[in-house]
């Protein structure tokens, strides 16, 4: 009995062993490509300790300008997100396969895929060339990439609705637009608000980075300090970012909970 039992278990798991084996081979292969070298962590630990020590104590002499630029960063995130929401509402509905025929939602989804697959950093670099250095380039970059994400999420919410209420509205003699306004939007509203707020949180984080390619905000100061090896100032900037981003996260989470 016991051997039989063991065999049964063995039979069931050998494909699993194979799967794990393949995964290990994949890891080993990627090890080479990524030039993994954990020994360096140990060997150069002295250097790293010295380097880390250079960050302390943080120098907050310029805190006024840090805070000013951090606020600009939040402003970039706010406008980038709001413009994206405004575009994602119609796009999200047009990308939903239960609302539009395939020849509308398929091409639109591909465009959204493209918006999403290119990182906002890349868009920021392109817009810096197009509209010049400054926060507006950051807003445009966040707008495009966030629209790609939000339109997809909005469309998925629309695809999950209950068709009943939509038909109920249709039966009153409503127009197609009215079916969407009264049948679809009320159903997806809580999810949409939640997604939009979550993207705002993510965009505050992203906005700190787009600054590093010249698209305004705290990222510009951060990049200047790193390039000048002014690590005590860098540390202060990082701390400002951590505090503000955490604050926004908490606030937005509170708001989101009210809608779920």
């Amino acid at each position, binding site marked *: 009995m016991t051997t039989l039992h063991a065999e049964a278990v063995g039979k069931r798991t050998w494909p699993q062993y194979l799967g794990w084996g393949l995964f290990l081979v994949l890891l080993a292969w990627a090890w080479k490509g990524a030039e993994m070298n954990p020994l360096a962590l140990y060997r150069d630990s002295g250097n790293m300790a010295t380097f880390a020590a250079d960050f302390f104590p943080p120098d907050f002499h310029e805190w006024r300008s840090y805070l000013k630029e951090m606020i600009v960063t939040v402003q970039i995130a706010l406008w980038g997100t709001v413009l994206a929401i405004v575009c994602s509402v119609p796009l999200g509905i047009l990308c939903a396969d239960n609302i539009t025929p395939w020849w509308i939602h398929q091409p639109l989804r591909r465009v959204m895929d493209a918006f999403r697959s290119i990182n906002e950093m890349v868009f920021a670099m392109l817009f810096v060339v197009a509209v010049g250095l400054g926060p507006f380039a950051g807003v445009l970059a966040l707008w495009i990439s966030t629209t790609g994400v939000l339109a997809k999420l909005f469309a998925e919410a629309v695809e999950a609705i209950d068709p*009943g*209420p939509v*038909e*109920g*509205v*249709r*039966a*009153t*003699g*409503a*127009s*197609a*637009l*009215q079916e969407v*306004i*009264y*049948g679809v939007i*009320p*159903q997806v*509203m809580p999810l949409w608000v939640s997604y939009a707020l979550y993207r705002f949180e993510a965009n505050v984080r992203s906005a700190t980075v787009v600054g590093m390619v010249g698209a305004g905000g705290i990222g510009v100061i951060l990049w200047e300090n790193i390039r000048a090896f002014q690590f005590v100032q860098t540390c202060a900037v990082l701390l400002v970012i951590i505090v503000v981003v955490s604050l926004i996260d908490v606030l937005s989470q509170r708001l989101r909970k009210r809608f779920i």
Partner: protein
Amino acid sequence: MTPAIHVDHLNKTFAKKTALVDLELTIATGEMVALIGASGSGKSTLLRHLAGLACCDKGNGGSVKVLGREVQASGRLNGKVRRLRADIGYIFQQFNLVNRLSVIDNVLLGCLGRMPRWRGSLGLFNAEEKQCAMQSLARVGLADLAQQRASTLSGGQQQRVAIARALTQRAEVILADEPIASLDPESARKVMEILADINRRDGKTVVVTLHQVDYAMRYCPRAVALKGGRIHFDGQGSAMSSQFLNDLYGADVDASLMICDQSRHAELPQRLALARA
């Protein structure tokens, strides 16, 4: 006088199954008709075609006319079907209210088919429309719940809100698809009373699909029975014998279940007589 509903040689085939076969039906203005039949007999499909919520076969689909105007013919909906639907109130088994809107907002949706599109889309209902909605809600006995969210109501109350929506619509024809199938007996009775009252007092044409034959006999002077997408019986509800019902519902199991169901409604003596027959 043009009939309220005229169905001419209607055919409907789903992927493999034929749902309606060469169906002919005429319902005069002011009638109250029960559509009965087993599950899959085509009664709901027929009702959906009447409101243009489903489209008949392309080749030999036949046609549907409501109030003398063509809703669909040969698989094509009339281009103005959205405005035509304003005259056709539809009550669903699952109520199909917009859960997150208030009761009164749901009832106001009934105005959409009769007002300018821009005003309806912006939700700018005028005083007259609001008053009409409140009156409809009062008629189904739910005026005091106007400001509540639709999702907080019981099933029976939700169905009455759906009827108020159809009343606000000022529809001449009311189609009700299994309106009481998801309700308890008391709510079911209320809903049927309201539908019968709309028929009697306002002279609206009412077509209701029902599972419960006893309700059909009690409230509807005329019954149309469907079987396999064809009309199996069309006449006075009280003329249906239990032998006929056995035949209509096919298996013996179904018939015995039905008789159990009937004996539960002790207040209906004729139903018990039927069970004994």
